[in-house]
């Protein structure tokens, strides 16, 4: 019974944190279509700032929940070393920039999330961004949003599993194709999401930038115009890079991760 309550509460925390994250990223679209009286209220101007604080608090709550469930000594050691390897990839990327927005870190985040589960994937995504920001000097106001988005990439990776099971494709080329497609999608999604956090704050031509009072459809149209003009090519490079990297290292990496997943299931029993 206790376990059931805990699981239900855990699911509620995940859902709420994700809902607040979605609200935080998508508010530029629905905020202007709220009742007209609201638009002129004094609170609509500081809504983005207040929402940023709400997002940070929810992110903290989600981390508390995840670390409480997941982090045993074995997970801590495994996560620490994998984060170190992935952070180093980002360090290399900063020193020798790849094409467009390509970053090699997403390959391992996705593969680790796919094999070790969504919670582990979330931690892998968030901590990779945190540690790599520390070693590359990339700490900035963008960091919480990057951590949240990369965490989502790792957390959503196990969604590929049912499809792989359905296709009976474990260890086969079809599994690799699915993960490549997933990596491609996250290459695009990461760019789309990361644009959204600063889009309401920047100024520019009226047909590309956010304003209070525009309709939902106008907001989407403006964002699309902004995205096409500034980010599409950049994100396509990121998406193709992810897919290509998974194609090259995907299958052997999956085999290694699966082998170590089995090895990590050891237990120490007291002799007396």
């Amino acid at each position, binding site marked *: 019974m206790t376990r059931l309550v805990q699981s239900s509460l855990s699911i509620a925390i995940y859902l709420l944190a994700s809902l607040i994250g979605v609200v935080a990223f998508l508010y530029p679209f629905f905020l202007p279509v709220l009742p007209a009286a609201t638009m002129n209220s004094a609170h609509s101007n500081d809504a983005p700032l207040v929402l940023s604080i709400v997002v940070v*608090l929810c992110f903290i709550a989600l981390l*508390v929940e995840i670390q409480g469930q997941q982090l045993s000594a074995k997970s801590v050691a495994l996560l620490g070393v994998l984060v170190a390897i992935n952070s180093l990839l980002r360090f290399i990327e900063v020193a020798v920039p790849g094409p467009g927005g390509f970053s090699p870190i997403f390959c391992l985040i996705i593969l680790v999330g796919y094999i070790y589960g969504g919670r582990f994937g979330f931690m892998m995504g968030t901590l990779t961004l945190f*540690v790599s920001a520390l070693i590359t000097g990339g700490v900035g106001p963008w960091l919480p949003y990057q951590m949240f988005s990369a965490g989502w990439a790792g957390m959503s990776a196990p969604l590929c599993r049912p499809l792989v099971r359905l296709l009976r494709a474990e260890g086969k080329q079809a599994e690799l194709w699915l993960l490549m497609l997933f990596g491609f999608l996250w290459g695009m999604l990461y760019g789309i999401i990361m644009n959204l956090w600063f889009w309401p704050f920047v100024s520019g031509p009226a047909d590309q930038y956010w304003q209070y009072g525009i309709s939902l459809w106008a907001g989407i149209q403006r964002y699309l115009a902004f995205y096409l003009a500034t980010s599409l090519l950049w994100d396509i490079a990121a998406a193709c890079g992810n897919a290509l990297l998974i194609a090259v*290292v995907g299958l052997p990496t999956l085999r290694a991760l699966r082998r*170590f997943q089995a090895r990590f299931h050891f237990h120490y029993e007291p002799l007396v």
Partner: protein
Amino acid sequence: MKLHPLAWVAWLLSTLVALSVTRNPLYLLIVLLCIAIVGNLSPKSQTRYKLPTALFVLLLVTSCCFNALTVHYGNSVLFRLPEWIPVVGGVITLEAALYGLLNGCVLIGFLLAFQVIMQVITSQELVGLLPPAFYPIAVVVTIALGFVPTTIQQIGKIRDAQAIRGHRLQGWRDWLPLWMPLLIGGLERAFQLAEAMVARGFASNDRPKQIIGDQIALVCGMLLLLAGWFVRLVWGLGGVGIGAMLIGALLIGLTLWRIGKRSPRSHYRTRRWHLNDSIVLLASLLFAGLLLAPLDLLDRRSLYYYPYPELSLPEFQTWLGLCFLCLLTPIVVSLLNNPKEIGS
């Protein structure tokens, strides 16, 4: 004497607030000068994080050109691009270029402020700032930071070994013989570390007990935060909304504190809090409060500068300009305390 990391975080927050609230070029100049002085004269913990000057120039030029080319608004027309060119076609104005330049200055200020922090606080000190409730995450980050140099060494060894075998990096596929030994070597080290940690009793219970009370508090806290945000925005009930959000934040904070209490923390070398730290903290909080507090008594109109539709000279209020000098507190306290340390 080095300042406490928390005092530096307070300084960073007040700098970010200062950069966010004003586009007045005169105040921006003061903020940038303060950051540069603090960055140059503060005792360094690590100096490797230095952003190239070319990046700042690029940021300024890009921001200025982008705004000038895409915002066709303002009275001082510099030149005109053919209307048929999408996005950039139209009048190019001095006002748009200046506003882009100001935005570029703000971005540079952000980057410089974070650069100062990365120079004066070590990674270990940053990890130490994590609340006790996040000790597993702090351990993961410490392991990761500790393993980075080892992993760099391993990459060198693998590259040398593969080079001896005649391996050359020519295409994407050539990375695989480097990647797999790196990954498997890393996983082996993780395995050994896990064995050592389990043998020494770290987190001896494989599945740490979760307390339902904590989970309920987190759920309620998040619900209150979300509800408060909506109530404040949709129904315009500012007091109720803020109240709900404060209770939500308090619930989450209390849960963190409770969890932290359950995992006692020991320090190898305790960092003491000195009078200087209190002065910097207080000055930063007062300054940020002065800029943000909803007090009608304070005349802060000169903070807002908008060059459209016609360029005008920015206003300057002496008392406000002097307040911006609060950002120099870390240097002033160091100067008063030990002038020899400055710039070391």
